[in-house]
């Protein structure tokens, strides 16, 4: 079965002379949540930017349902939703208008939009805030707006960059429940995070990125095996793998 997202020997970064990523390869299949894990500066955000088609690879390629961004821009963008680390809102638009604009941009028909939007507002407990402007939102509320916009589109692939930052516990739970639901329906989810306990609980597989290279990837069992640390949790493996590197340096 063809994976939803396939990253093949991707090298890239802001300058050709100083690549950030070195031959990164991984895939996200249907019914799968994949955790992208790494220290600050490991290359997580750069990887995500390449997947979003905001940067061109130096070599290698990224395919979404078999298509590259360069050849099928619109279809590529259409089949993916992004939840950024820092909420990117339009200060001059209300919460409802954010949802409406997103639905318009992704070509949802008006009826579907209203149904989904109302359900989402209810689930994230923001029904009363439809006419509010972002300046009245806390960090967590802003993040919820981004999350709702992504779920509204209901694409094949979700890319979430540190989605939990600033969310209250109920917000995190709603988000994760939705993620699981989307996974059941056959979506693929790529999620970068530092919160390893949550990642361990929800992700099916993990990609450990370090200095722009993948040092380990697989299920928790496979990671334990590769690291030679049977029975340890993700936290320990992560610390151990990056510590080893410190010794070398």
């Amino acid at each position: 079965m063809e994976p939803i997202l396939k990253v093949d020997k991707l090298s890239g970064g802001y300058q050709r002379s100083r690549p950030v990523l070195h031959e990164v390869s991984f895939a996200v299949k249907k019914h799968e949540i994949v955790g992208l894990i790494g220290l600050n500066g490991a290359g997580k955000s750069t990887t995500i930017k390449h997947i979003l088609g905001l940067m061109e690879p130096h070599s290698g390629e990224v395919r979404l349902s078999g298509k590259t961004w360069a050849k099928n821009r619109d279809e590529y963008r259409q089949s993916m939703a992004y939840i950024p680390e820092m909420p990117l809102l339009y200060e001059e638009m209300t919460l409802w208008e954010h949802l409406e604009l997103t639905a318009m941009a992704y070509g949802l028909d008006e009826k579907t939009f209203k149904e989904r939007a109302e359900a989402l507002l209810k689930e994230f407990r923001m029904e009363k805030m439809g006419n509010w402007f972002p300046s009245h939102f806390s960090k967590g509320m802003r993040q919820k707006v981004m999350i709702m916009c992504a779920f509204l589109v209901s694409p094949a692939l979700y890319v979430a960059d540190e989605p939990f930052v600033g969310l209250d516990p109920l917000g995190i739970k709603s988000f994760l429940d939705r993620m699981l639901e989307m996974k059941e329906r056959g979506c693929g989810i790529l999620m970068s995070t530092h919160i390893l306990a949550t990642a361990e609980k929800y992700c099916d597989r993990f990609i450990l990125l370090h200095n722009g290279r993948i040092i380990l990837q697989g299920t928790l069992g496979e990671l334990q095996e590769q690291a030679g640390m049977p029975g340890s949790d993700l936290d320990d493996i992560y610390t151990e793998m990056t510590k080893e590197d410190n010794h070398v340096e």
Partner: protein
Amino acid sequence: MWNEKKLWDKRRSDYWAMAVKYLRLIANSGFLFTIYLLFVFGSYYYGQFLEWLPETFPAVLFFTALFSWFITRGRVRTFAKTGDLFFLTPREGKMAPYFRSSIIYSWLMETFYMAFLLLILAPLFFDRIHPSGSLLLSIFLLLSGLKWWNLASGFEEQRIQEQSRYRLHTVIRAGLNIVTVYALFSVQPIWLIGGLAAFLLIFYFAYFYKLSKTHSLKWDRLVDIEDQTVMTFYRIANSFTDVPALKSKVRPRNWLSFLFRFVAYKQGNVYRYLFSRAFARSNDYFGIYIRLTLLGLLFLFVVQLDWGRWLIAAAFAYMTALQLETLRHHFNMSSMVELYPGQEQGKFESHKFWVQVLGSFQTVIFGVFTTVLYGPVNGLVVLLLAAAVYFYHSSVRLGKVYGNASGAAE
């Protein structure tokens, strides 16, 4: 080697590099043209105004009030930054050259503004106070000296922590200024003016200068003064162009939401949707639009020549169009727009759409207003001219603006 003088020079040049960018934008925004118009009409009506002004007009008091205010206001521009509270306080004792430069700089700027003010008022001065040019020049030089005294004293005065005492000092300065400025404009004998100057000098050295020995600099206040100056500049610049540093508040303006009905719910309308919200609620697009429209109406009302009104209508339509043009950059910093599928073509078309819609409103307003005041023929000419301007802007100029950009950064 780092030293205080170099730091000051660096900060001044940084500020001007920033300011020049905005000044250039202001110059390009039709502002110079407005000034020119004001100048042409102003010089015509100035003479009439002077004739109309009754003989009893208290010219000396008017000059005294205006220049006393002008000389008392304004403080030394230090270019101080918040970080200085931490990084420069240890070197406070060695900062004298830095602040000397600040005082000289502020004095030159203020003198320049004052020269400008005096130039505008010169005809009034010659008509009502004294016809001698050399007298006006002497007054100007003496006022400039008084400004120096005020800046120097005002700088030492900021060392006083207590807000009420600090204000009291300003009030005392204002009082001395009123006396001195009145003496100048009522053309008092030389000995009296000389006496006042001597008194001010002695007062400075005997009192203000001594403050610097006993009181430390109040950096918070210096930073406040600097911030206010920069903000004033930003606010002025903001009425001509978009100033990112000035995050002006978003205003809901619900009564403008009828504009949003021009945007149907469909995928191709993403930019129409975005632009409508940006225009109605953010920054001052709408404010500028309204101001230019009202200013246009005022000119249409005042100007008595037919062709003058035609010119005014076309000019104000064009200035408004140039302002609407800046909407183009509004969403440049938003990375979410980049992620939406299928928006490659939509931006230019949507921008054009809004220039045409908003242009039509203004055109109709100009046309109807002129019809009511000067009859249908005049109204029709104004209507057609404004419409032609918007047609030119939206179908020729805007396309070029977008065309040039696609080759470059965008």
